[in-house]
């Protein structure tokens, strides 16, 4: 879409009568609340760079990074983990230093093609080891002693893309990450269900009767705006995404369903920049071997189908998948053959357009640990966010993150 066309469309839209407009266009009611140059700006970028999308995956509960990416030449690792340490013969060798958990074979295949970048020791100063708090910190991109009430993706929407469907969480409710100060993303578990909830005849009539001139910035006006936006967005998402069917068989679990829906959205050309999905169950305090193996397999098999699905429609090169967990786990195993909450962790970036595939940086020392016996952080997670915002979404990262962070070099 070229920029002159965008301007032409916006000015036409503004000339149109509100009601006619709502009927004619499914995707633009929020235009009235955003200065048109902001809108045009975000679409101009599109025409230059292709439609880049970011998929964020949270492994909830605190994934055990050291049993995901294993330093199998390090005796300290096996001493700290006498019963749960993964033996050399059971892992997938990456570079004669590090190996992947055997469940991650699909990831190894992507790795060999240069589609994976592994960033080690990602964390932040004074780490918090509570699930809730640590999740907050990652989702709001705050300091560890700072409480923010908006998420980093939410602030991206606030400043650069005020469409509710510009950021979609594949779930029934919305995480803090997607809540802005003024603009929130949307939670869509199933486009069909969401569409149906907006098709209530009474509510549709109320929307139909509403007139632009009555929309105000006051609270009630805001409620009407949200109601109208939602109906339009739900219709747009439903009608756009139904044109596409998955090219892959996905495993039958909730996580893969989220990825299948994400692929359907991406492959149908939905103008969504950010997708958010999550996989639960990584809080492995007790007898972790089997549970962890199962969850990693769910993750890797889902990613495998997802990437193939995207590749079949040539959208993989414009998609970046960021996988994180709110914290890593303690180096030393506990007495229950599990691991307790730790801090710095390994982060996976998957994409067809990586500048520096492979292992991005060395794994941190297992001897020089912090006071709790956790790996010390080397790279602030907000360096990763800043890089993604600037290099991938092409926006000013400091506006979203409230300060400047150094750029990394992976995309």
């Amino acid at each position: 879409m070229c920029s002159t066309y965008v301007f032409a469309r916006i000015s036409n839209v503004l000339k149109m009568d509100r009601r006619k407009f709502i009927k004619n266009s499914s995707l633009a009611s929020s235009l009235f609340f955003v200065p048109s140059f902001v809108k045009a700006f975000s679409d101009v970028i599109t025409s230059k760079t292709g439609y880049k999308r970011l998929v964020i995956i949270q492994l909830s509960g605190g994934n055990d990074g050291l049993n995901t990416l294993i330093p199998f030449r390090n005796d300290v690792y096996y001493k700290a983990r006498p019963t749960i340490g993964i033996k050399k013969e059971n892992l997938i060798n990456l570079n004669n230093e590090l190996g992947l958990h055997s469940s991650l074979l699909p990831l190894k295949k992507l790795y060999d093609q240069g589609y994976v970048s592994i960033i080690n020791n990602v964390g932040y100063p004074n780490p918090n080891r509570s699930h809730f708090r640590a999740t907050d910190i990652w989702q709001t991109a705050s300091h560890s002693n700072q409480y923010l009430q908006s998420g980093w993706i939410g602030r991206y929407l606030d400043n650069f893309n005020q469409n509710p469907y510009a950021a979609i969480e594949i779930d029934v409710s919305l995480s803090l990450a997607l809540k802005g100060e003024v603009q929130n993303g949307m939670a869509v578990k199933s486009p069909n269900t969401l569409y149906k909830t907006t098709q209530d005849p009474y509510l549709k009539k109320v929307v139909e009767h509403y007139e632009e001139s009555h929309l105000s910035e006051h609270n009630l006006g805001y409620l009407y705006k949200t109601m109208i936006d939602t109906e339009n967005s739900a219709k747009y998402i439903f009608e756009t995404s139904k044109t596409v069917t998955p090219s892959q068989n996905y495993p039958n679990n909730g996580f893969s369903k989220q990825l299948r829906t994400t692929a359907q959205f991406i492959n149908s050309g939905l103008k969504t920049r950010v997708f958010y999905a999550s996989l639960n169950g990584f809080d492995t305090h007790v007898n972790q071997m089997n549970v962890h193996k199962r969850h990693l397999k769910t993750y890797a098999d889902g990613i495998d189908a997802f990437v193939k699905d995207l590749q079949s429609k040539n959208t993989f090169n414009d998609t970046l998948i960021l996988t994180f967990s709110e914290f890593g786990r303690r180096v030393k195993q506990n007495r229950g053959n599990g691991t307790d909450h730790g801090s710095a962790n390994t982060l996976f970036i998957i994409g067809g357009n990586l500048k520096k595939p492979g292992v991005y940086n060395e794994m941190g020392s297992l001897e020089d640990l912090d006071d709790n016996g956790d790996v010390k952080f080397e790279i602030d997670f907000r360096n990763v966010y800043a890089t993604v915002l600037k290099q991938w979404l092409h926006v000013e990262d400091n506006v979203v993150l409230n300060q400047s962070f150094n750029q990394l070099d992976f995309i």
Partner: protein
Amino acid sequence: MTKNHIQHLYSRAGFGIQPNLLEELSTKRREEIVSDLLNQSKNFNPLLINTAEFDTLTFNEFNKTNKIHRAYIEKSKLLIKELNRAWIHKISNSKEILREKMTLFWANHFSCQDRFILYIQKYNNTLRYYALGNFKDFVKAISKEPSMITYLDLKQNKKGKPNENFARELLELFTLGVSNYSEEDIKEITKAFTGYDYDFEGNFIFKEENHNDDFKYVFGKAGHYDGDDIIDLIFEKKQCARFICTKLYRYFVNDAINEDHIEEMTNVFFPNYQIEPVLLFMFSQDWFYNPGHIGNKIKSPVELLAGISQTIPLTFKDTKQLLSIQRMLGQMLLYPPNVAGWKGGKSWIDSNTMMTRLKLPSFLVSDGKISTKEKGEFHDTYKKYYENRKGENVAKASANWEVFNKNYQNIDIEALPNYLLQCPINQNTKDYLNSLSKKSKRDYCVQLMSLPEYQMC
């Protein structure tokens, strides 16, 4: 006092008002009505659920093995869900409406979460007990609650091993507000709050051996302060009163603050920090009833639920479903997002919560159906839409329409919006409503509750 003003008072200080009470009060003066409202909340009735299994539990039994410990924690988590349900029920049915409204306020001020039922139930009742009392005593009590000691790591804060979490939030979120203290103050205050602990029964214990008895330098003063001394020092600052009054103003009056009115409140609150008198003052002012404030606040999810239940009493049969409703609305009581609590106002609203709010009343009271029968029509044209939806999303709650029928029997159907809505209906929406058949008060009630206007109070 005008009916409009009484409704405003009751929607802010409580969760709405019944037509008969409104009628009765409309002959009284403001002073009388406000003081009655406060008097009704004099009593303190704790929120208690059946915790028999935990009441006689000993520390040794609780920690006998890892497995037993985990099983108790799981049971405790289930009971916390029951406590949530009991709380929602209390909010909708209590006689002490202002005390409940304030308990909600404080639960979001002293935002806290726990997985041990006895401690969080105790915590919740501490909020309720001090809700209208003395704020200084309140803060001291909160600092000694097991749930708070755990939530903000006070137990880990020992002599020589400082943990600043509690000290920072005490200043930033509980008393003074951000940028009204220095980082040095936090470090010194952290020293004073050492030695805090509790026993298994949840009684506060001061552990002398963990306490740092050094000199502390706080706000330009020095002494061998302990935690309570620090709270006394904080409360000498008028900023503390101002901070709380600003929050009260946002909660009861308007998100957009008026500095002069807040200063008036602050002068009432400082230096004694009695909560009830400042509320009495606020509800008595002409500015509280300024037309710009009336019907201009977005209800919190709990206010929305309580409001529906006020008009059509609801009984939730399934705790899980009640929790899932709260989750979808974005406010699960006892599960705050973090120590900063819920932000409130417009941030309650996103695409999903908006649709949930609009569909919630019909889901709870009329099997998901909102009538679109037009004037002169015998059948609902959209009957077919609903036929396709049978069996979807059944509400596991019973709605007592008898109470509605009785309370509204003398109310003219055309007058229903005056009782159910706090703000005028948007003109276009009104035109649409006027085109609809107005034969059934029940249908009209559901139609009104399903509007954006119903989200306002």
